[in-house]
Structures are given as C-alpha cells and as structure tokens.
C-alpha cells in the first residue's frame, strides 16, 4: 500500500451527501477535489479515476453531461472501491455510489435536463433582479466583476444574462440590502428588459408575458 490516508480525514467536505440546501453534483465535485488534494496520487485508479470523475462531474455541473456519464462514474467508483490502495479514495467512491443510488433523479436532472434543482451549480442557474424589490442603490452594479448589471441611481437594475458569469457576488451584496436578486433554474422570474425608474415595475398585470426574458 502506497497511500495510507485516513478516510476520516477528508478536510473541508462531508464524506456523505446531506440533502439540506445542497446539490449532489456539486457535493461530489467538492468531495473529489478534496480527495485528490489529500491523496498521494501514485496509483492509477485513485489518481486517474478521481481526475476522470472530476472532469465528468464538472462537465455535468456545467450542463455538458452525456447520457452514458453516470454509467462510467459507477464503473469508475466500483473499480476504485476494489483497486485503489488508499482508504480515502475508496470511501469517496462508495459515497458517490450511494448518492447515485439515492439521488438518481437529481443526477439525471443535471445530465438530461441540464438543471440543478438545488440551484447550486452556477452554470445551470441564472441570476435575476426582481423589479418590485430593487431599490436602485447601485451596490451590486458597482461590484459586478463582469459589468453585467446595467442601471443608474434609483433605476431598477437589470442583469445582462450573456455577460453574467454567475459568480454570485451580487446576490451576497443584495441579500443584506433589499433581497432583490434571486437565482432561477428552469422557470425564470419576470423582470424589466432595461432599467426603469424604481417603483414603476408591475410584475403582475402584464398578461403573463415573461417580459423579463423577452429578447
């Protein structure tokens, strides 16, 4: 045995998946990153298996999953469980297998529908500024690293989805100010197309038109 890491010692991530406020795919990715960081990386299944799964799961979390990916992950996990030399990667493989067993729907949502039900996988969610809540304070706009937010003082801010990198900085800022920024999966909230004065947005009463998404 080359690698003698203790399975209890994966720093920074739960070795078992807990559903509350979490996403199974991003959990698996974090777990694998932690495992890779803490193993010696000398044997092929432990090293290449972990890296291969990381690559596949990263793709899944960004909407580039393939239908056969889950089978490959299962195959790799079983091989790691049987052949890896260290307890750390074996334990992680078993946890991922369990998560696939228990939360197959959630995995499939990512792979097939390209959705993250927990709204965690940033590539699979969009960010929106609710017109009825935005105070036009400019704080999110100033901090956006992509300059994807347009608006002016006392004008409702609007996120340009093409420019948004889904970093989440705006949502952190706004949650302490007016809580106007939300994440969305498949169903997007209605928001203004372009900045309009604060107080003039009527989300309701537009005949169900999803104005915010009309381009």
């Amino acid at each position: 045995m080359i690698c003698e890491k203790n399975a209890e010692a994966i720093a920074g991530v739960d070795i078992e998946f807990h559903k509350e406020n979490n996403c199974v795919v991003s959990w698996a990715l974090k777990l694998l990153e932690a495992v890779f960081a803490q193993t010696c990386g000398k044997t092929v299944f432990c090293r290449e298996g972990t890296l291969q799964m990381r690559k596949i799961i990263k793709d899944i979390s960004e909407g580039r999953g393939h239908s056969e990916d889950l089978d490959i992950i299962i195959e790799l996990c079983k091989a790691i469980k049987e052949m890896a030399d260290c307890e750390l990667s074996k334990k992680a493989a078993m946890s991922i297998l369990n998560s696939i067993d228990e939360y197959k729907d959630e995995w499939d949502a990512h792979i097939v529908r390209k959705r993250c039900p927990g709204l965690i996988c940033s590539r699979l969610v969009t960010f929106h500024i609710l017109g009825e809540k935005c105070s036009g304070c400019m704080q999110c706009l100033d901090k956006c690293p992509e300059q994807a937010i347009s608006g002016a003082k006392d004008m409702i801010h609007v996120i340009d989805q093409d420019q948004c990198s889904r970093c989440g900085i705006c949502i952190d800022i706004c949650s302490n100010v007016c809580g106007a920024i939300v994440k969305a999966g498949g169903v997007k909230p209605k928001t203004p197309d372009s900045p309009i004065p604060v107080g003039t947005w009527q989300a309701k009463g537009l005949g169900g038109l999803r104005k915010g998404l009309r381009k």
Partner: protein
Amino acid sequence: MGNIKLTIDGISVEAEKEMTVLQAALAAGIYIPHLCHHPSLPDVGQCKLCVVEIADRDGVQTSCTTMAEDGMVIKTKTDRLNHMRTLSMELMLAAHPSECTSCPKYLKCELQTLIQYLGVSDARLRKLSYNFPIETGNPLFVRDMNRCILCGRCVRACRTLRGAEAIDYKKDNEKVYIGTENGGLLADENCKFCCACVEVCPTGALRDKEEVVSGFNKAEEALLPCKASCPAGTDVPRYVRLIKEGKYSEAVAVIRERVPFPLTLGYICMHFCESGCRREAVNEAVSVKELKKFAAMRDNGLWKENSKIAPLTGKKVAVIGSGPAGLTSAYYLVKQGHDVTIYEKLSSPGGMLRVGIPEYRLPRSVIDNEISEITDAGVRIVYNTDIKDLNSLSSLGYDAVLIAIGTHKGVRLPIPGSDLKGVMVNTDFLLKSSLGKKVETGSRVLVLGGGNVAFDCARVAKRLGASEVSMACLESRANMTASAEEVEQGLEEGIVIHNSRTFSKIISENGSLGVECSEVDNFYFDDNRKLVINTVPDSLHVLYADTVIFAAGQIVDLPEEYGVESGRANIIKSENYQTNKAGVFAVGDCITGTTSVVQAIAGGRGAAAAIDKYLGGDGVIDEVLAPCEEPGAFIGKEERFAHRERKQISCKPVEERINNFDEFEQAFDAETAHCEAERCLQCDLRLRIPKVKLWGDYAHK
C-alpha cells in the same frame, strides 16, 4: 532452482521461493500484462495491469506485489481481470496524447505494445491534457510530461536504484507529474545524468536527445561514446570507476586489455574519448587522459597475472619499423605464438614516439619501460637495419611481413628557395634533436605550418636556445589544426604566430633567410581537392629568420623496391591490412597518413589479428586482464554534482620549462584524480539495466 510449484492458467509452473507471482509467470513464459513493473526496480503495484485471481482469495491481486506460494492456483485472463486492465489502460490513455505516429518513440514504445495487446483506446473517457511545456533545456535527454503515464519507474530508478534523488512525484490542484524538488532544471537539482530514468521509461516522456545519440551504429556506442570514440576501444568508464575506487593496477589492466602503452597514452593520447564524453554536454568532459596517466604511473603489474602467451606456432613474422603500430602488432603476434622480429632503421625503438614527439611531452624512460614489456614478451628488435627491399626478408624464411614504416618524410613546399641552406623539414629537425644530434638553428627560427607538429618544432627550437621563434600558417588563429592546448602553451612560451599567411618564396639576404608571404583573405579546396587561396591585395611582406622549418605534413618514405601499391603521399594501399603482395601487410601511418598514436595502436591490433588469421590462427587477440567486478548501481545523492568542474593540470612556469626538455605538466595527485574520476557520469551503468521483454517475447501470451 524451482523449489515451489504453482498452477498458472492451468499450466504447472516451478518457481523460486523469493519470486512474486508475476516473476514466476514471466519466468515460465506466461505473459501477464504489466507496466509499472521493471526487472531492475522494486515493485509497487501502481498500474494494476498485472492483476490476477488467486483461488481461495477474495478479489483480485496485483501479481507484482504478491509472493508466489507453493500450491497456488492462479488465473491471469478472466473477464473480470480483462475489464480491470482495460479500464486502467483507458484511464492512463485519457491523459496521454492520442496520436502515436507523431511520437519520437513510435514503434519503440512499451506503452504502444500494451495498447496493441489490450486493444484499448481512449475514446470512451474524457480526454485530460495539461499542456506541459516540453523540457529541452536539460542536457542529454528531453522530458515531455505530456506523454508521461506516471508509472513511476523513473522515480524508482532515480531514488531506489540509483539513490540520486533528483526527481519525485509532484502534485498541484489538478494534476500529478514527475519533477524536480524546486521545479528547476535537472542540473541544478541533484541529477547525476546516469540516465537510468530514460532507460526505464516505457513511453516517449523521457528520451535521449536525437542529436546526442544519432550517428552511431549501435545503441551501446551511442550511450558509451567515450569507449566508441576510442580507436582501440578502451573501456573508459570501467577504468575511470576503478581509479575512483583506488584500484589503479586494476584500472591499468583494463586499459592493457586494449593497448600495450597505457602510460605513453597517458602522456600524449589525442583523447578522442574526451571529445565523445557525455559529461561535455553537462558541463565539461572528464579528464580521461590525465586519469589514465595517473593510474599508469601507479601500476604494480597486476595485468601480467592474466597475460598469456600461446604455444609457439612455428610461424615467423618480420615487422619493419618499431613505432607504436609495429610494436603493437609484434606484441600481439608474439602472444599468439608467432616468432616476431622487428627491423628498426634507427639505433633505438619507438618510431615517432621517440623521434617525433619531443621529450618534454613524453619522457624517454616511459617509452623505454613500455617497450621493454614488449621485448620481455619475446619480440626481438634488430636495430640500425634499414630494410630496402622485401626479398631480403623472404630469404630469411618469414611467413609474413608487416610494413610499419610510418610517415617520416617531411614535406618541403615547392616554392623557390625551399632548398636553401638553413631550410629544414619537420621530421629531420625533430629526429636530429631527439637523438641528441647537434642542430644549429641560429637565434631566429621560423616554422611554416600550424599543426601540432609545427608546434613541436617551434617549442623544440625554443628549448634548443633560439631566442626568437615564430610560426606562420595558412589558417586563422581560430582554425589552426593544432590543439587549443598547444596553441596556448606555445604562446605562453613566447612563440609568435603569424596567421593567415601564404608563402611565395624563400630568399637569402645578408646571411639570413627571408620568407616572402602574403596575407590570406580566404582559402578553400575546389572540386578537385586543389587548394585555392585568395590573398589580400598589396600585402606582400618578408619574415626573416636564420632557420626556416617546413611543418607542412609528412609522407611515407616508401622504398620503391618494396613493390607495394601506393597512392597520394605514398600511402600504401591495403585492404584489412593486406597489401597487393601476398603475405605482405601494412599498418599505421603508412596506410592512413599521419594520425595519432592511439590510432596506430588500434591499427596494430587489427593487423595482428589479420596476420594471425593469415598464418592459420583464429585472429582473436582479445584478452581478459582485469579481475571481474560488479559496479554498484547505487550511485547516491550529491548536490550540485552536475556543476563539478573539470580538474586542470598545472604546468611549470614558462621560465622553468623553455630551457630544458623536462616534462612540464604535473600529473594529478591522488586527491585530484579521485575527484576527477568521480565526475564520470558512469554511462555504462545504464547498459546494465536489462531490456524489457514485450508480450511478443512470451510463449503464452
């Protein structure tokens, strides 16, 4: 042998107790795929290709890390195992370039044979690539981490087999790779350039630089260029190692396996080995010649214990000339049981060793001692006998004749005044001064030529008392044919060198000589090998001297009565030392033109073999003189090994050397010699690493 029995794939196999299952299978001709296993390295079970199933044991086991036990029943090729191997291989290939044909290791790659055997491709998994820059900044070999599959053989070779500790596994957030401790170049991080890592790499990740290994016929020659470059094939790394270990007589025995003049060569060898030395690419070549001299000065004659002389064959051989070629041939012919007589024109033996090479470069006692070993072996030398025609020899009943007359005729350039009084040629000048005959030079000597012989003439003239010694030659300073050392030492001794001159005539004026020269702009040889010189306009001038010495090459002084075919410069035509006349052989400078002592010796060996065959022998003159030894593979760690500088010899100050013929270069002392010997990269150790057998080599695949 074979004290346990096991069954592998239904075949009953005998094995030794200390063997792993993999070793037992491979020894029995049963192939189990493997990649991280290498016969010279400890097994670690990383690649998982060698998995097997063992009856009564759970799961699968890596056969390289499982000891063979009596009665074991093993399966090597089940579906489960095949699946495991395929998946492992797919994983490795996912991080390896897909395209084999563009790889320099294509068709010489162990990984490629495994891909073939397992029928695996990288198509199913995600491709992982890390875009490592290809490292070409290290000497001798290229590191291309993109092609590395992390089998770890190089790390084990470096750390466990050699103990050099230059490379190890390295890891960052997204990848594992093999590298140096601080990520610097190998030379700065303990690498000893033994190249064991390159030898064991199963992929194109570590590979010898093309320019380093190209141009050789065999891999062994490419990897041991010192030995391959030695005309006599001396086993350089072996004797350098023995010197390092303090085994000087053993070292000399190794040298004596190929040449009968170790100390002579220690003084004056052209050291082709040093030009070949792979350490030159790291920083500077090992000072092999000086090491040889150091050892040969301390020889206690151990080599004689194993030196044998065959029973007499009754065949008689005459050798004409007692230079290094003739002496070497005579020596080996006597050892083959033949009766050999050397006929020497002069009153003492050695040829160019004695009358060409000045005494300050080669003390006469060295020549005398080494020649006495040859006469002690039974070679007879008849002095003061100039063989003018070969019939006189055949009437004496010789079965074979060897012409080894060298190139003792100096060339006088065909310019007006070249035969004026006071104009001499190199060979006559050196011969006379060597034999202690009085040579009147006057105070100003001008040597025409720029080779090593020209320097010999100039420096001898200086030592004979000439106050103004100068040289003039066609070549520019940078392109002079003399060795850089000669030029440097000559300049130190106050010799003035006039470069880029061509000579049109020699004149005699008021009791002194003048050489009319022009400055050379450029020169070249045309398609007919004719020299074309372009001079600088209006550059005609005269260099004055009391003595002018031509040092423009030497030709063979070949008596026409010998009746042997010859070509340009009277060089005797021969094929495998055989001339056009039956039973008449030729060797040395007289068949090659002026070369070097070590080439003459190498020729001497070749001619001895050829003549022995001609006389009915087997022509095998090789001998084992040094005791067998097993060099240690573990060379250990040494920081900044690659930066250790070549040891220089010290020379006596100029004023102490220019008025006498004593040797002026000081040989290495023991400490310096050991230090220098330690610089050797021991390239021969790599050749002791066995070649990996591939699946095609096994009976049961």
